[in-house]
């Protein structure tokens, strides 16, 4: 079942990539990130945000690959070196992620303007990038808490094997959902930029 879910997420990723293939390039990603950073106020928080985001993103991709690829390719849970890698990287992801949250949470807090946009309904929310970013941020945050919390609980002898199995199941599915959200978020940048460029023209 989980293998099929991973396969579905992979297919969604491929479809999104295919749809955005013209706009998508690493250069554009770099430019976009730089553009965002320029808009950001300089200072320690900006540097912390940059640094922790970069590490979080890198570790998140590595954790995703080590967690999902063995399942996708072999149908078995990760084991051996891959498991060691996953287990070793995970705490560093948590640390980097915590710093990123700390550095970004105030910026991503919903404000009066967001409340007004929410009241206008989904179509307006969709077209308003900062509010959408915040929605992504908070859904990402919440799901991370659930996913990470489940695996932390499984580290302690509180649950039976089947309980731990359920916790690991929660961790896997939540992280897969998180991965899907991250992928949608990632490609949304390009489609949105393309729209903005078209509108500007």
């Amino acid at each position: 079942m989980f293998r099929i879910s991973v396969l579905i997420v992979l297919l969604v990723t491929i479809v999104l990539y295919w749809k955005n293939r013209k706009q998508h390039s690493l250069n554009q990603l770099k430019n976009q990130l730089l553009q965002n950073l320029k808009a950001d106020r300089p200072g320690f928080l900006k540097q912390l945000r940059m640094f922790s985001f970069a590490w979080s993103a890198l570790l998140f991709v590595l954790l995703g690959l080590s967690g999902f690829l063995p399942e996708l390719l072999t149908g078995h849970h990760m084991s051996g070196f891959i498991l060691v890698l996953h287990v070793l990287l995970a705490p560093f992801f948590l640390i980097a992620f915590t710093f990123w949250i700390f550095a970004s949470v105030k910026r991503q807090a919903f404000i009066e303007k967001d409340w007004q946009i929410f009241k206008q309904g989904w179509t307006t929310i969709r077209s308003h990038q900062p509010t959408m970013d915040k929605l992504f941020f908070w859904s990402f945050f919440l799901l991370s808490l659930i996913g990470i919390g489940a695996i932390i609980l499984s580290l302690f002898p509180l649950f039976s094997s089947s309980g731990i199995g359920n916790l690991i199941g929660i961790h896997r599915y939540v992280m897969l959902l998180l991965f899907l959200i991250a992928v949608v978020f990632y490609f949304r940048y390009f489609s949105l930029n393309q729209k903005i460029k078209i509108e500007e023209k």
Partner: protein
Amino acid sequence: MKFFLLLLTGVYLLQAADSLQVPLLGDQPDGNRATPIHHIKLLDQDSSVIYPDEHPLLPFSTQKTCGPCHNYAVISRGWHFNAADSAVDAGRQGPPFIWLNRHALIQIPLSYRSWPGVFNPQDLGITALHFTSRFGGYMPGGGVAADTSLQTLKNYWRWQVSGQAEVNCFACHDASPLYDAAEYVDQMKRQNFRWAATASTDLARVEGSARNMPDNFDLYWGVAPDEPRKQPPTVTYDARRFDKKGQVDLVLTRKIPNDRCYFCHSQKFENNQRQTEALYDDVHLKAGLHCVECHQNKLDHQIDRGLAENENSCENCHLNSGRFGAPKPQHKGLPPVHLEKVACTTCHSGPQPLNTSYLAHTSLAHELGTKYAHREATALPHIQAPVFARNAQGKIAPNYMAWPVLWAIVRNDSLSPIPLEQVDEVISPLIARGDSLPTEDWPLLNDSLLTTSLDTLAQIFPQQQVVLVAGTNRFFLNSQKQLTVQQTDVPEPYLWPLAHDVRPAAQALGANGCTDCHSLSAPFFNSKIRNETILSDVQASLLPGNRFMKINQATANLFSSTFLFRPLLKIVVVLFYLLLLAVFVLYFFKGINYLINQLNQQQD
């Protein structure tokens, strides 16, 4: 055409008759749970009722005595009797018989079943007669001991003298405390196959030996006039046990006493203080179960072997049915991947693993429970345990292991064992000459003795390379006739599952935490197994214990090393997680507060 139709009808009717065969009186329980009393007449092989004062007296025949009420033909195809039946699936590996000859430097695991790693006795020139007289004491009759198709013409007259060992129902079902399994072993060694079952019960005594009788010994006429000093097998029944009708009371039971199983299925681990002090430590037996409650069988005597698909396997009782009040294991803190990759027995069976494997003594290999028992700690044959290896399901499980030690000829890179009789004739006198130490281990050897032995065999097999294989060492003479040792993987040792004694949760591997296995010094991943070295100065006397686990040692060590800083890691992870949670909760309540304010404002 008519004849053909008649033949077909005949075959059909025979088959129909067979399928409609009415069960005999004792073939299936009638529902009464009480143990039936067997107040019966004993019949000999000629179906004559035995009266203790008649002459000549023959041993009773189980086929004739038990057969009228129990389907002997069906029973005799059961697991304990069908090893030599090539039509029967070999099944999971089980304990082998080990052919041992100290002075010939031979230790070979044998079985008629085609288990990987065992040698078929026939391939080594061991006849059914030889096999039965050597190992028959630990077989409950039938099978090899009664299968005429395995008997060679050469031994025809010997089989006439010894008779065949019928299925010995008493070996398992005799609930009398006076049943003497050791006597059965003794009788089989004396080739009293026909008499062994009778002699082991408390109904009779058997003296004399069929082995000493000439080929023309006649069962009814006794010993030949020219052999007066040799005592023929003679049975004397306890007349007090017979009533006027010639009936005796037999204490037989369906619920086999554990002692009956133990005689052939006991094991002892050297240097294992716990087991030496507390015999019968299996948690199931302590809880009041009997061996046969898990290892059940029906009339066909296909004993449940504890396989996952059996009704009373570990998984079925403890995870599904809860039979016999089996508690459902919590395995608190144990990630479920362990249950996928590791058999129950790994953590719960046998002695706790040490840095070096234990030397194990088993009933079958060391003749435990008899006067012939090999008692020394290092007594041959060398069996070691626990050796962790992947089983057929790909799970890691503990095993017993025995290296073969044998003389062979190298043919096209494969080994062809030299017949044991030939080796015994040539090698035993050479080695025995210098063996004055009263030990049950290998005799003291040196290079020159081994060189002489190899050279002597090489003269019998000219132009061929003769080798002695012992563990991973292959000894041979090079072109200058110098003794050379080479490391080899062929033949592989024979491994068979170790399942008892079962330890309770508190004594299982992992009861003290993950580091019971996941640490750089934990025996589970880092123990050593003993090589069969023969010569004391040969290298590689200890080998990595995980060679059969098919794991990457580097990865295992890397994973184990993560447990060094796991406590610290847990603290860090929990701390950071709590910070994250605090931030989320803070903003969550801020959001709720804002939402309530907004709604209030709207109302106002």
